[in-house]
């Protein structure tokens, strides 16, 4: 047996924009064990419910993570709405779905870019981020913000999108789809990309089930689980199937995310087609009383919101279980026995969002 050595990975690492620290125990070039240490981004924002009113807390919820910011706000709003029995108008639900799916496209494109950067394909990284800016432009015209846009509120949404803009969004997406096709073909067919991804970090179906992986990580291992099938917001009116791949390696996880971008584009087209006229928010009175679990599908997987209210304007407890937190055991599982050079690849394919995980 060769000598064991420990290589620290992070918290400040060129591959990751975010701080996570892993102690990698190596035997020659093979990783035997990975020991994570966390807490670099911990703010303790769940305790802020004691200081902010429940209507104000939407802003805090949106700032749990800047990438899936809209869906965090949406999850919190849905939980409070369900406690207070507020019926959100249909148009608001469609608008929420539209923004949520746009967020998914932006998040997945960003992830594809970071993945390309991790295996050293810089021009691909730049192209992914160039396409992503078009989505951010849509956000800016419809909400006013680029990454955090506080457009969700309890009872509905703040802003409406007029008919022409909706048509414009579809036109932009149609144009983008052609460019995206060229881009994703590189990920799918390029020899050097496949060389880095195929067969790397395999998580079998049974393992994925045992460690409780969620989101694209789980769907890449052949388990069809998608919280959107629960039919929250306007998903109950839309027609789609969860994207599933069976190989469970980094390549399969990339494929799942690529196919999900096209799926989201399709969902947005359906949204625009079916969007009804009407109000965008429901006025409400009173304070929430009771508790509620809310499950949502974020770009990274399932997020659970638990809200407990006591009839005053301050909530008792808000608990968020975020997708990356659940995927960390899966990451530690795939890291065992891999090559040191593949570590950035593995860390990226769970699509880590550390600020979600540590809150």
């Amino acid at each position, binding site marked *: 047996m060769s000598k064991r050595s420990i290589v620290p990975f992070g*918290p400040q690492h060129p591959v990751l*924009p975010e701080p996570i620290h892993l102690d990698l125990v190596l035997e020659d070039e093979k990783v035997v064990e990975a020991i994570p240490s966390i807490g*670099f981004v911990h703010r303790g924002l769940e305790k802020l419910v004691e200081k902010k009113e429940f209507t104000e807390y939407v*802003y805090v919820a949106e700032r749990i993570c800047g990438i899936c910011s809209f869906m965090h706000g949406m999850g919190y709003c849905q939980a409070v709405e369900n406690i207070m029995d507020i019926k959100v108008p249909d148009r608001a639900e469609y608008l929420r779905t539209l923004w949520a799916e746009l967020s998914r496209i932006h998040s997945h494109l960003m992830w594809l870019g970071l993945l390309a950067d991790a295996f050293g394909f810089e021009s691909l990284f*730049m192209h992914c981020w160039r396409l992503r800016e078009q989505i951010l432009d849509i956000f800016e015209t419809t909400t006013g913000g*680029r990454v*955090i846009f506080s457009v969700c509120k309890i009872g509905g949404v703040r802003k409406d999108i007029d008919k022409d803009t909706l048509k414009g969004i579809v036109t932009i997406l149609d144009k983008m789809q052609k460019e995206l096709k060229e881009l994703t073909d590189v990920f799918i067919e390029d020899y050097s990309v496949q060389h880095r991804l195929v067969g790397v970090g395999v998580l079998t179906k049974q393992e994925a089930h045992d460690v409780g992986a969620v989101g694209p990580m789980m769907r890449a291992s052949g388990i069809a689980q998608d919280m959107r099938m629960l039919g929250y917001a306007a998903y109950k009116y839309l027609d789609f199937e969860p994207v599933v791949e069976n190989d469970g390696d980094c390549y399969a996880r990339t494929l799942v995310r690529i196919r999900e971008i096209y799926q989201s584009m399709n969902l947005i087209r359906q949204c625009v087609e079916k969007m009804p006229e009407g109000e965008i928010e429901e006025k409400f009175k009173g304070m929430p009383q009771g508790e509620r679990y809310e499950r949502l599908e974020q770009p990274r997987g399932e997020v659970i919101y638990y809200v407990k209210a006591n009839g005053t304007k301050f909530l008792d407890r808000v608990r968020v279980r975020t997708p990356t937190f659940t995927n960390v055991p899966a990451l530690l599982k795939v890291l065992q026995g891999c090559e040191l050079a593949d570590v950035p690849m593995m860390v990226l394919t769970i699509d880590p969002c550390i600020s979600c995980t540590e809150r």
Partner: protein
Amino acid sequence: MSFLKKSPWIIHYDGTSCNGCDIEVLACLTPLYDVERFGVVNTGNPKHADILLITGSVNEQNKDVVWQIFNQMANPKVVVAVGICATSGGIFAECYNVMGGVDKIIPVDVYVPGCAARPESIIDGVVKALDILEEKRVALARRRRKARKARPVSLTNLF
């Protein structure tokens, strides 16, 4: 500022940011804003960097990391606090694990407000930082010259 005297290399560290400012910092480097055409390069190594961009506030766990990155950078160096969290703690100022702005730990030269800070304002902040970098360079050179004059070192003095 009509032209750049220097290609500034930046290092980016994420404090307790929500990623919003982080992805905007990265967006500055990608085709739409593309600061690389001005010679601004993102590096992972503190020893190569001139400008430290910090997003998010500091907490008990990461204050040593921030301090270490700052100390490993060679003089002259400039610190830019990006986003309202790095400036004062922002919406999270009341959280139990947030100590406040980055200036609690290291000296900050430029503050870029915004939640999330827009790429335009981040680039603006970096341009401001460049002027400060130049001032610091001049001051450092003057200090070194003075020190050399005050204590002339020659081989005969050493023995």
